[in-house]
C-alpha cells in the first residue's frame, strides 16, 4: 500500500550552512544514499518524516478494509491468503515506522499524530469494502497502484526508506496477484459473480487513480522532492503508467473500465482518460471519506482496548529486570 503527499506544511526556510547544503545536494544529485547520522537540511528531514510516516499510517489503516473480510472469506484457501496479506501490511507499517524513527520522531509521536487526526493516510482506505469482490479489486488495483509508486522509491535517496521499500516491493507482488486471481475467478463464475466483480471495479477505479495524488500542476513540492530523490517520478507520469498496464488486464477478464472517455492514443502510445473528480479527492483528504470516522475509531479502539497488553509486558519486563538485579 502507499500514500502520496497529502499534507503540506508551510515551508519554513531554516538557515542552513551553505557549504554543508551544497555538499548534501551534490551527494544526492550523484545518487548517493543519505544515512541517519549524516548531515541533512531540516526541510529534507521534515518532508521525509511526513512522507514515510504517512506511508506507514496507510499500511496500518489499510489493514482495516481487508480485515473486515477475513472472517467471511469464501474458502479456507482465501482466508489463509487474506490473513497472510493483512499480516504483511502490518509488517510494512513496521518497516516504515522504523525508517521514519531514524529521522528523530518517536513511534509514539507518530501514532499519536495518526490517532488525533493530525497525520494523514492514503485516501483510498476511507472507502468501504462491501462485497468479497472488493478484496479482489483492492489487491489488483490498490496494491497495483502501490507497486507503481514504490518500485521507483527503492532508489530513493534516504537509505532506510529505500531499504524498507525493497522489502515491501518483494512482498507486494503477491498481494496484487492474489487480488487479480479473485477477480479472474469471479469473472469465470455465474453472471451474478461477474456483476459483482464489475461493480467492484466501478467503485475502486477512480479512487485508485486518485492514489497517485493531485495533478502535477497542483503539486508544488514535486520539483524539490524529485531533486532530493524522495520522489522519482511525478504523480501524472505514474498515473499514466498505471492506466496503461491496468486497462488490458481488465479487458483480459472481460471487465470494462468505468470511463467513457478512455481510449487508446496511438501518437502518445498510451491511453487518454477522463477527468478525475478532484473535489471528491480533496474532500476525502479533509476526512470526509465514506468510512473515515469508522477507520479512526477502529484504530483508537484497538490502541486503547489493548493498552493492558502493553502494560502487562512492561510490568513483566520490570519484574524480570528487578529479579536479575537482586540475584
Amino acid at each position: 500500500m502507499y500514500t502520496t503527499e497529502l499534507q503540506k506544511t508551510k515551508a519554513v526556510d531554516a538557515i542552513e550552512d551553505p557549504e554543508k547544503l551544497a555538499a548534501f545536494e551534490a551527494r544526492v544529485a550523484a545518487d548517493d544514499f543519505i544515512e541517519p547520522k549524516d548531515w541533512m537540511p531540516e526541510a529534507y528531514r521534515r518532508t521525509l518524516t511526513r512522507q514515510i510516516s504517512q506511508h506507514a499510517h496507510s499500511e496500518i489503516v489499510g489493514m482495516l478494509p481487508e480485515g473486515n473480510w477475513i472472517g467471511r472469506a469464501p474458502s479456507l484457501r482465501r482466508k489463509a491468503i487474506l490473513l497472510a496479506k493483512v499480516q504483511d501490511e502490518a509488517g510494512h507499517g513496521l518497516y516504515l515506522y522504523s525508517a521514519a524513527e531514524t529521522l528523530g520522531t518517536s513511534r509514539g509521536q507518530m501514532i499519536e499524530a495518526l490517532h488525533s487526526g493530525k497525520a494523514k493516510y492514503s485516501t483510498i482506505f476511507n472507502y468501504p469494502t462491501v462485497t468479497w469482490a472488493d478484496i479482489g479489486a483492492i489487491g489488483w488495483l490498490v496494491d497495483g497502484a502501490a507497486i507503481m509508486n514504490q518500485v521507483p522509491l527503492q532508489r530513493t535517496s534516504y537509505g532506510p526508506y529505500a531499504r524498507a521499500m525493497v522489502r515491501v516491493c518483494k512482498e507486494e507482488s503477491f498481494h496484487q496477484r492474489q487480488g487479480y486471481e479473485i477477480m479472474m475467478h469471479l469473472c469465470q463464475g455465474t453472471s451474478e459473480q461477474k456483476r459483482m466483480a464489475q461493480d467492484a471495479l466501478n467503485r475502486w477505479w477512480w479512487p485508485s487513480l486518485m492514489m497517485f495524488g493531485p495533478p502535477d500542476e497542483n503539486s508544488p513540492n514535486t520539483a524539490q522532492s524529485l531533486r532530493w530523490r524522495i520522489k522519482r517520478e511525478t504523480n501524472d507520469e505514474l498515473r499514466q503508467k498505471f492506466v496503461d498496464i491496468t486497462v488490458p488486464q481488465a479487458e483480459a477478464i472481460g471487465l470494462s473500465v468505468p470511463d467513457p472517455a478512455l481510449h487508446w492514443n496511438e501518437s502518445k502510445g498510451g491511453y487518454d482518460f477522463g477527468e478525475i473528480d478532484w473535489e471528491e479527492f480533496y474532500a476525502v483528504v479533509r476526512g470526509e471519506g465514506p468510512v473515515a470516522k469508522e477507520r479512526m475509531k477502529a484504530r483508537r479502539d484497538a490502541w486503547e482496548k489493548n493498552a493492558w497488553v502493553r502494560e502487562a509486558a512492561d510490568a513483566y519486563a520490570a519484574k524480570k529486570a528487578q529479579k536479575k538485579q537482586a540475584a
Partner: protein
Amino acid sequence: MSKDWPLWEVFVRSRGGLSHRHVGSVHAPDAEIAVRHARDTYTRRMEGISLWVVPSAAIVASDPADDAAMFDPAADKVYRHPTFYNIPDHIKHI
C-alpha cells in the same frame, strides 16, 4: 502519551555458512519479546534460520562527520594490495 518500548536491532542469518546481517529494528519491552517480534516482522518468508537482537542503545558507531580521518589513510597504502607488486608473467602460481 505512553513511552515507546526500547528499540532492538535485528540481525538474520539467512542460511548456514553466512553471517548474520542487519535487517532492521523492532520495539520490545524485553529480549524475549524482541525475538518474537523480529521473527514476525522480518522472517515471514523463510528469510532466515537464526536471529540476533541487540539493544540499539548498546551499539557504538563511528561518526560520519569523521569518516575522512577514519577511513582515508588506507587510500595511500596501496602496497597493502597484491596488484601493487609487479611480477613477470612467466612466473606462475603467484
